[in-house]
């Protein structure tokens, strides 16, 4: 039931501002002073009653020894008993009421918010429940101090945190705006990219079709080049044969031309002879004419001669006519032979040209053959390359399809991110308003705890 108070004393002594530790150390009667025996109030009442009873008995015993009348003895006993009882009761109640007054004052101080001054009751050798109460109040004050200081600290921290959070939220809001605009740009870029990818895809598809056609064309070109090669070879052969035949024809024509020229010479000779014959006929005619005149002038004697002369003249006339006819024929022949000669000359020239052209054709065919060979090689290379190209284009088409898919995914993801960013912005603004509320609340809290004085 009783307990040493020193076990609990340190909790009081540790409180700041009590100053009890310093006093205790200097005191030499510390052990005696620190001796405490806890007696509860009830026992104290009982003990004081016992003291009053024992005092009455002692007074009664002392009065019985002294010779005083028994009536006085009784009165004296009762009076002493009353006096003792009053004295003890007064002392006891004064101590008790002082303690309670102290306790109630301390509670009032705490209620007013002053946590700076600790409650200190008078030190007693026999502490009772008041000491416990004081201790409890002190403990409560201490706890309140700790709580308030923590609340202050915490509210300050909360205030600071909420301020920085508010700043952060504002920054975040700004960032969100930037992110939103960036996301918008990204979304635009993504849709543009999607369009471009779509365009690229169609272009690549067209390219793929073109490549396929090119491959087909290259194969056709290869076939054509082979055909051209065969045709050129055949053409060269034919041209060489033609050349040989033309050479023969040329020789024949040249021979014919020479013959025609000789024929023309002969005809010219014949013409000259005919001209001489014509002149002879003319002269004969003239001679016959003169002979006729002479015969006429001879009269009867010249009649026979006149007949002969007339006949000669007729012959000369016939000769002249024949010569004229021959001359005409010769002229026609000459004209025709000239035409033939001209034609042959033209033919010779044409043949010469033909020979030159055939030579040119052979030369060209040689060039064509070389070109066709080269073309064939190139076409083969083109065929191989276009095959490779077609393969690459196919791969490209696949890649572009994948890119298109990824781009679409990107666009969708960008939209989602945009939505998320919008949501985040909403959250941040909510958070911002919450932070403002929190700041207000921390300010209110600070105001509330500011009522408590700790120093």
């Amino acid at each position, binding site marked *: 039931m009783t307990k040493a108070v020193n076990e609990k004393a340190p909790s009081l002594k540790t409180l700041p501002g009590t100053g009890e530790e310093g006093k205790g150390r200097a005191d030499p009667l510390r052990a005696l002073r620190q001796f405490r025996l806890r007696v509860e109030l009830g026992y104290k009442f009982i003990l004081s009653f016992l003291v009053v009873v024992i005092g009455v008995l002692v007074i009664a015993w002392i009065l019985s020894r002294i010779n005083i009348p028994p009536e006085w003895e009784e009165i004296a006993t009762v009076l002493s008993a009353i006096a003792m009882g009053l004295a003890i009761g007064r002392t006891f109640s004064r101590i008790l009421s002082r303690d309670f007054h102290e306790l109630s004052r301390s509670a009032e101080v705490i209620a007013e918010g002053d946590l700076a001054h600790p409650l200190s009751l008078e030190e007693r050798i026999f502490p009772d429940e008041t000491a416990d109460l004081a201790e409890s109040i002190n403990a409560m004050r201490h706890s309140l101090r700790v709580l308030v200081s923590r609340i202050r600290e915490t509210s300050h921290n909360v205030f600071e945190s909420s301020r920085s959070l508010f700043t952060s939220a504002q920054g975040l809001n700004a960032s969100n705006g930037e992110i939103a605009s960036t996301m918008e740009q990204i979304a635009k870029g993504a849709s543009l990219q999607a369009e471009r990818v779509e365009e690229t895809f169609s272009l690549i598809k067209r390219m793929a079709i073109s490549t396929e056609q090119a491959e087909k064309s290259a194969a056709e070109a290869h076939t054509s080049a082979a055909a051209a090669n065969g045709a050129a070879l055949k053409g060269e052969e034919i041209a060489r044969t033609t050349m040989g035949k033309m050479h023969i024809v040329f020789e024949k024509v040249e021979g014919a031309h020479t013959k025609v020229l000789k024929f023309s010479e002969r005809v010219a000779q014949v013409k000259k002879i005919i001209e001489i014959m014509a002149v002879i006929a003319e*002269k004969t005619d*003239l001679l016959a*004419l003169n002979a006729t*005149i002479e015969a*006429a*002038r001879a*009269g*009867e004697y010249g009649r026979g001669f006149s007949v002969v002369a*007339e006949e000669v003249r007729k012959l000369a006339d016939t000769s002249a006519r024949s010569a004229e006819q021959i001359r005409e024929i010769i002229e026609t022949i000459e004209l025709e032979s000239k035409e033939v000669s001209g034609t042959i000359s033209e033919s010779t020239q044409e043949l010469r040209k033909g020979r030159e052209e055939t030579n040119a054709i052979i030369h060209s065919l040689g060039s064509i053959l070389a070109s066709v060979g080269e073309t064939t090689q190139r076409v083969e290379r083109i065929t191989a390359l276009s095959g490779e190209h077609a393969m690459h284009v196919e791969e490209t088409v696949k890649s572009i399809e994948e890119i298109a898919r990824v781009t679409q995914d990107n666009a969708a993801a960008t939209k989602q991110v945009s939505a998320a960013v919008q949501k985040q912005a909403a959250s941040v603004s909510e958070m911002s308003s919450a932070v403002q509320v929190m700041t207000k609340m921390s300010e209110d809290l600070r105001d509330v705890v500011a009522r408590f004085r700790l120093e």
Partner: protein
Amino acid sequence: MLSPDSASNKIIVFRIDEKLFGGELSKICEVLEKEMPLAWVPRAPAFVKGAVAHHGQAILLIDLNAFLHLPAQETETVILLDSPDRDIGLCVGKILGIVDMTGGDIKETDKNGDEDRGMYVDRFVQWKDRVVGLLNIERLVSDIDGYF
């Protein structure tokens, strides 16, 4: 020297400017070729072409076209006339032949009025469907002589 029934019955037919003329054979001495070197005759009339030498004689060549006022033409034959005073050659076209007036080749024409004949054509005859004007050689020669 000439027998009238032989040479006088024959005419020599020649061409001047596509027209046919005839002359009595008895008045003609010789027919010459045209190719002869010509000599110029001073103070001669315009119808004198020049002079040529033949058998040592100088022969005066008369351009009959110019004399008869016919268009000019190329001389093909020269008819040497038999005249007593001077040797005259008539430059004519082609000689077409010697025709016997007594044979059946010549027909008389009715185209013999004075206005058609002029000064030197005696009459017109038909020979081989063509009209031949018979020249009066004597008058021609005397007129030519008159210029000298």
